[in-house]
């Protein structure tokens, strides 16, 4: 009799033993939270992915698409999970025209491998994302993780120019193209960004590429007060200087950062707020930006300004880029919130970091483009502290919602994730999103329950 439990054998008949893995190690490697699949399929081509999806749709299997599995923790655990589709064998650069600055790449290639190829032509894809070592191009797009170069280059939405994917009916579809300007047909590829694999299995992505900058520069300044740091940020934003990144962090965040990168830290964290700016260009451009930032920091009563050496610049850039990766590991009981669409004022920040209860700590990183990372954590495992942590996280989420921000829980210990939704409450447009989901995936086989509103 055909049951969900014995589908792996039937899938193996379809794909061959090479294409289906059922060893415990493989299954554990694809686990999300406490759930693991019954099989991991390893297709080599988009038509094979389509065949697997058709099989899954016919058998009503719940499917999770994955790449290097570095971000499976994002989102809610799936409500059902039968089959993982591992896309890492789709790893070809299908088209790369350096003279046109366009690229078409399979979803399973890693960002680092791709970067190496692009760097040979002195080009790059400006996705400075966490988990970038192992991360695949497809997983980076599906998870929609923040890029530390967003201020200058925008999000993937601004340079993803097309996609090929398998919809929930098991057909290979595409949208967009491989040219830098295109309004032909619906922009379905935009929907895939950050959809956490709930709409389709992404098999190929087309991008606009960018020249590598001639030089990169970094600037640090520390401020005696939160207000002074925010004043500096505001003046840097208004200056029109072409910054690639501009971040502020509180003393708690600085201490955690220092614990990771002691050698490279240009200052002792102390009780200061820190501003970090990154920028690109030739020597005259870098010189001008550094001068203007120094002047502006001095006007805002900075304690000190620092222009680290090249090695330190690179390390700082990496650490801040990878915040979503290392920060959750900084304490056993830590919840990391991403608050987006909120223009964080110094008063907001003060309310958050000063509203602390005994035993709870707050690390705050104000990123550009109205994105804030807030980690709430406690060192102890005491029940009272855990209760305080949960109530504080709820409170922060409610405060952000009240200001119409969009809040997601990037990380939380399992006990907390069981009680809190990773996603905030849905808006009035949620029924439309459900309908879009249904259009892509009529049988709801892709990543059920992982996305906002339980999609």
């Amino acid at each position, binding site marked *: 009799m055909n049951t969900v439990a014995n589908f792996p054998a039937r899938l193996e008949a379809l794909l061959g033993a090479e294409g289906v893995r059922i060893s415990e190690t493989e299954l554990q490697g694809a686990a999300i939270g406490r759930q693991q699949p019954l099989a991991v399929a390893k297709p080599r081509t988009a038509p094979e992915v389509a065949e697997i999806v058709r099989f899954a749709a016919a058998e009503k299997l719940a499917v999770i698409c994955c790449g290097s599995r570095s971000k499976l923790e994002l989102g809610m655990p799936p409500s059902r999970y039968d089959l993982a589709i591992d896309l890492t064998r789709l790893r070809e650069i299908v088209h790369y*025209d*350096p*003279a*046109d*600055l366009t690229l078409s790449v399979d979803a399973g290639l890693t960002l680092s491998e791709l970067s190496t190829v692009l760097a040979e032509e*002195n080009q790059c894809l400006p996705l400075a994302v966490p988990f970038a070592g192992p991360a695949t191009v497809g997983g980076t797009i599906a998870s929609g993780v923040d890029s530390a170069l967003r201020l200058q280059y*925008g999000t993937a*939405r*601004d340079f993803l120019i097309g996609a090929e994917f398998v*919809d929930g*009916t098991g*057909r*290979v*579809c*595409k*949208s967009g*193209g*491989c*040219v*830098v*300007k*295109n*309004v*032909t*047909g619906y*922009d*379905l590829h*935009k929907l895939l960004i950050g*959809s956490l694999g709930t709409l389709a299995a992404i098999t190929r992505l087309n991008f606009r590429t960018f*020249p*590598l900058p001639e030089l990169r520069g970094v600037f640090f300044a520390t401020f005696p007060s939160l207000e002074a740091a925010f004043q500096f940020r505001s003046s840097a934003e208004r200056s*029109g200087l*072409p910054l690639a990144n501009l971040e502020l962090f509180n003393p708690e965040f600085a201490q955690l950062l220092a614990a990771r990168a002691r050698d490279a830290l240009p200052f002792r964290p102390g009780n200061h707020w820190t501003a970090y700016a990154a920028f690109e*260009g*030739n020597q*005259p*451009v870098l*010189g*001008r930006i550094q001068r203007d930032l120094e002047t502006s920091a001095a006007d805002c009563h900075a304690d000190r300004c620092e222009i680290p050496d090249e090695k330190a610049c690179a390390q700082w850039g990496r650490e801040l880029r990878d915040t979503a990766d290392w920060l959750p590991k900084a304490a056993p009981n830590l919840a990391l919130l991403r608050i*987006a*669409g909120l*223009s964080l004022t110094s008063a907001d920040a003060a309310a958050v970091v000063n509203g602390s209860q005994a035993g709870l700590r707050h690390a705050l990183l104000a990123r550009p*483009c*109205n994105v804030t990372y807030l980690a709430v954590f406690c060192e102890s495992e005491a029940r009272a502290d855990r209760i305080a942590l949960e109530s504080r996280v709820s409170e922060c989420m409610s405060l952000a919602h009240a200001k*119409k921000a*969009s*809040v*997601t829980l990037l990380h939380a210990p399992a006990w907390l994730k069981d009680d809190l939704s990773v*996603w905030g409450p*849905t*808006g*009035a*447009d949620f029924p*439309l999103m459900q309908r*879009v*989901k249904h*259009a*892509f995936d009529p049988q709801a086989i892709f990543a059920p329950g992982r996305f*906002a509103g339980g*999609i």
Partner: protein
Amino acid sequence: MDPALTRELKILLGPPSVLSDELDLMLYEFDGSVEKGRPDVVVFPHTTEHVSRIVKLANKYQVPVVGRGAGTGLSGGALARGGGVMVVFARMNRILQLDLENRRAVVQPGVVNLDITRAVEHAGLYFAPDPSSQKSSTIGGNVAENAGGPHTLASGLTTNHVTALELVLPDGEIIRVGSHLGDACGYDLCGLLVGSEGTLALATEITVKLSRKAELVKTLLAVFDTVLDASRTVAEITARGITPAACEMLDGWTLGVIEDYIHAGFPRDSAAVLLLEVEGIREAAETQASAVARICLANHAREVRTARDDRERDLLWKGRKNAFGAMGRLAPSNYVLDGVIPRSKLPEALEKIREIGAKAGFRIGNIFHAGDGNLHPIVLFDPRDAQQFKNAIAVAEEIIRMCVSLGGTLTGEHGVGMEKNELMPLLFTDADFDLMRRIHDTFNPDSSLNPGKIFPISKGCGEIRIRKSRQPVGSQA
């Protein structure tokens, strides 16, 4: 159409906001394209609630609805292909909120593109998408078509500058998608809606990003003796990784026509010019300007001029943006095409366009966004000559097919509309259409909103009533 619908619309909006006389309707059967389609009634809502009730009334009488801004579109997107009710947003033209601190403007769909910039330029801000029609086209139309413009090269299309929309769905429901500051939770519905050509919903309120004016803008005019040298220059600028704010090409024949009309200061005896703009902080713009000038000269530019002041700069841009108008002096009508090719194929594409035109006996002008490979060949014809019109359409199709064969696409900024819907199978498979159709039906299940657009009718994708076949503008046929 049932006259009772017109009566009900007049009760809802007042008689001055409803047009139903044949003479009035004739004015709304055109846009900037060579297509036509006459509505049965034209209405001018003042509020979102009006729009919702108009849509519900149209549903009650089972007639289609099409939205329209200023009617400057170039693909028939705002034409009533299936007749019905045309909703003209001209009176929903208020800027509702200027949030200068966060660089956002909330506007009604009937606000003219350039008026957003005029409202914020005192604060050193502007709205980046700048279609040539920006003095008259509305933001609602820009959103529907995902409009571009010369400065798309560095700043992106309309979709890159919209963060939230208020929509009226085809059943009359009013809903908001996106968020004021961006990064809304869930799927990127704004990204889907912008550029959906009015086939999914009517936008009744739009939140746009405002950009900061650059410290220094340098506008260069590079003059070439051959089109090939000019197009090689563009390819080399791209290949060197330089992204100017704008990189426009105008061929010599077009330049003469513009000079007669605008007196912009373009040379009359050249084969092509590039109008290039670089911007940024002083150090960056100056470096880029000299790099661009060096590449022009290395590719045999006869001369590279830099605009000395804003007046000279504005004049050069006036020449560029009014080029299509200038063409009106040469022939009763013109057909502005919109195709895209990979930038590295520019020299090859321009040569092919010349060959296609020569073979069919048309002189084809080229005024286009060279930097992003967005071609705008312009075919002059006399619409009173039915055969000539037919030939012009055939030439247009051949050029677009050539763009696709070079790895390009059907449209870079004008939209598919009813101009290119039958060419869509050049790019998309049945599976692609099925999914797009499911998305379409999710919003617009009865095709009551803007029917006959985007999807090829010949493939059975568009189950709509088509009253009029393709006819030349102004013909009696």
